[in-house]
């Protein structure tokens, strides 16, 4: 059995990774260190995804392993180790559209990449987007939509953010189904992303800048 947790998770060896996490915890290794390793592994997974070595099922499997490791170490983890976040991202599927698979994946990847993500669900009305943006004060808002009916909902949501003066402080990214550069221009978003890693890259650029 290999004993490098980072490598085992990055290579998607679920059983071996979970067994090693348990063993390490029993051996008295700091649970924060175990979780840190798991997150480093997710960075490798993300990089492999970007160079098309990994695909969505690999991200999903890596996510399951990370969840498993977290469940093992969380009870032993001290509160202060739960850590500072890079920035705030508000995300939701726009009004009329109930699809969530893509949105959930983006939420998950942003979360493991260190962002404080607030996922406000599916079929989110313009009013709720505005209210939650005011309340949560994110640097980035992500609008998700799978169907063509989402184009107009995105447009209306962005218009409402403009009218309430919230737009200036925000970067807005869109993604899902039929979304491309034409749609981005139509709804006046700052960028569109074709997958979950693109969302992470955008947020990293924007929040740093």
């Amino acid at each position: 059995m290999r004993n490098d947790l980072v490598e085992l998770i990055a290579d998607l060896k679920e059983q071996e990774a979970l067994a090693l996490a348990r063993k390490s915890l029993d051996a008295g290794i700091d649970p924060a260190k175990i979780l840190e390793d798991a997150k480093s592994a997710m960075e490798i997974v993300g990089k492999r995804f970007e160079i098309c070595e990994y695909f969505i099922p690999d991200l999903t499997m890596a996510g399951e392993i990370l969840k498993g490791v977290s469940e093992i170490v969380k009870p032993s983890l001290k509160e202060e180790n739960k850590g500072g976040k890079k920035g705030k991202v508000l995300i939701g599927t726009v009004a009329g559209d109930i699809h969530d698979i893509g949105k959930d994946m983006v939420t998950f990847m942003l979360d493991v990449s260190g962002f404080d993500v607030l996922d406000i669900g599916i079929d989110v009305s313009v009013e709720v987007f505005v209210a939650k943006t005011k309340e949560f004060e994110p640097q980035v808002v992500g609008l998700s939509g799978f169907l063509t009916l989402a184009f107009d909902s995105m447009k209306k949501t962005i218009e409402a953010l403009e009218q309430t003066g919230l737009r200036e402080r925000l970067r807005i990214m869109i993604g899902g189904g039929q979304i491309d550069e034409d749609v981005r221009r139509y709804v006046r978003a700052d960028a569109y992303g074709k997958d979950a890693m693109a969302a992470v890259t955008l947020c990293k650029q924007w929040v740093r800048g």
Partner: protein
Amino acid sequence: MNNDAAEMYRQREKRVEDAIALRVPDRVPIEVLFGFFPAKYAGMTVEEVMYDPERMWESQWKVLTEFEPDMEQNPYAVRFLGPILETLDFKLLKWPGHGVAADLTYQFVEGEYMKADEYDHFLLDPSDFMVRTYWPRVFGALKGLEKLSPARGIITYYMGVPFGFAPFNLPEVVDALEAMKKAGQESMRIASYSRRYAAAAKEAGFPMQFGAFTQAPFDTLGDFFRGTKGIMLDMYRRPEILTKACEKFLPIMFETAINASKASGNPRVFIPIHKGLDGFMSPEQFKKFYWPTLRELMVALINEGCNPCPLWEGNCTSRLEIIKDIPAGKACYAFEATNMVKAKEILRDTVCIRGNVPLSILVTGTPDDVRAYCKKLIDVCGKDGGYVMDSSTGLDDAKTANIKAMFDFTREYGVY
């Protein structure tokens, strides 16, 4: 031009048949999936046409006769669903009045309706699993069926007969049977309208695009039973049993298609492709889990004289060399966002290709944008036949002027 409807019917059928057989037709055929566009075009809500078969007829007929596609898609079996879904309390869709607003299209609700530890039950006896476990989960009105005992145990006077029928006397089973009877009446209504619509369209000179519907075994298992996440994890956690389940679905998917195709007398079988796209699995996973049973399904259909018509949703550019392995001139591959230049290059001698006019342009662009895109498609893909014009996916929210531009331009510029 011959205005006789029978002659128009023959010409349209031949135009599409020629394209599929990789012969050069008189012009590039055009056929689309209108989705719920007809309701909007006729000033109705989605809810109205989902519940009122006469309104459905009126709206669909208006679009058919005004746009005159080379082939029509029968709207009844895929859109006149309100009454039957309500009777069954169907859980896999949200539709107007049931989770979405009156003017929105119905939407799919995914779930894990077969748990990972239920593969064995499914493999032992798929119909038993469906009736006693799957149906009670996806049809609220059939929940009582979970009380039944397995039909396979009711064999003779001393095996099954004495006690096997007892559950049929339980109130919840009686309720389920009553709901099934009502669903039966709704099915008859769908079938009757569907038959009459096909006959009326034929009378007016329009063949139907498809006579049957089926899916890749992997998609059926993933879409309706295991869910996207469930089936993705199965590729790692239980690859052997996943493959067995796909193989179990293969004859079921074949039977579904061949029965409907024979009943309708139409060889074209629609196969939407959901989980085999680029990004949704690696090329190795595609070759291992997805393609073998899909290919076998399509080849079996071809051997029975059918034309498999998969709609490769999303982008499938990296799969082109793999999916090329199919008997030549028998199938038609519709593509949503696949690179069409590459598709033509790789598939030119094997498969007719279709589609790809982006919905983003049809919804947000201008007629000029549409014409420019269609010109590019006809120039590249239409060269020497083997191409059918179509949008990338259903037209639901497209602008009328843009759809019109796509039709007019194809009829004009697409002449060989």
